[in-house]
């Protein structure tokens, strides 16, 4: 199935593009999508995950523009045509 991945700010610097088209097996979860991206883009893994392999808690994961407000965002199943976005908020002033 075809899925679009979007990212912003410092993550975009690592992936090289703000929007990436991907072909994933049906029923794939957000975990699998991010795993594939981390393998393809060195430097993304340490930005996304902490030492225990958990997604860093301040990072927002969005499915079709809406926040995946789940305790286990990585287990969210992706559907054909979904746009999955990862947004690292900034904190300076």
């Amino acid at each position: 199935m075809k899925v679009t991945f979007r990212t912003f700010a410092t993550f975009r610097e690592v992936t090289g593009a703000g929007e990436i088209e991907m072909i994933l097996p049906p029923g794939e979860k957000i975990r699998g999508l991010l795993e594939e991206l981390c393998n393809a883009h060195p430097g993304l893994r340490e930005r996304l995950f902490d030492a225990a392999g958990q997604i860093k808690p301040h990072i927002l994961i969005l499915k079709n523009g809406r926040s995946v407000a789940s305790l286990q965002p990585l287990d969210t199943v992706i559907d054909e045509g979904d746009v999955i976005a990862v947004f690292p908020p900034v904190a300076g002033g």
Partner: protein
Amino acid sequence: MITDEEQKRYARQILLSGEEGQERLKAASVLVAGAGGLGTVISLYLAAAGVGRLRIIDCDIVESSNLNRQILHWSRDVGRPKTASVKEKLAALNPLIRIEAEQSRITEENMGALAQGCNLIVDAMDNFPTRYLLNRTAVDRGIPFIHGAVRGFFGQTTTVIPGKGPCLRCLFPVSPPPEVFPIVGATCGVIGSIEAAEAIKLLTGQGEPLMGRIFIWDGLAGNADSIIVERNPACPDCGNLP
């Protein structure tokens, strides 16, 4: 009532929102939390626009490393309190408004007194713990809160209207890790200007506020995006509102 002097000064805004809009700005009291990279931009535009009472809070002293971005602080201000520096510049820009600049650190204890009488809180802080305090105060008082943050060439902003859209805690339940953040002044200019425009829109009742959306600025890519976000029914700060 708008005076003849105000008629002239704000003529280009009166073209947009009428005398009624200008009167609303004049009657408004806005709390600007911070007088740094974002706060100097926000307070400059709000003072120029004729917001009747600006209350600006900051605890810091101007350092030379601030001067690349904090546009109301100049070389001669190094060593002065930021509040004294902004008050002087803003009073010279617009003597028709009231500027209350208070040198203090925003805490749980003084937050209520600082927000007393304000219609709107604008975020110009550099850390999330204080932003959460501003957010909760705005939610408790039912007044809007405009959030902005920057790093490098990147920034984000959103407008919280308590009970109607998500609050800051709904969107960002966990603070990004603290750091000495890299920054160019132009990024503060972009995000601070959007925050000021949001404030003017809300106060004059124009346009669509950035409610339920996070505006994301990527200055490196030359790109702006917005993402749709929703309230968290279990939010510890606003979950109790209808």
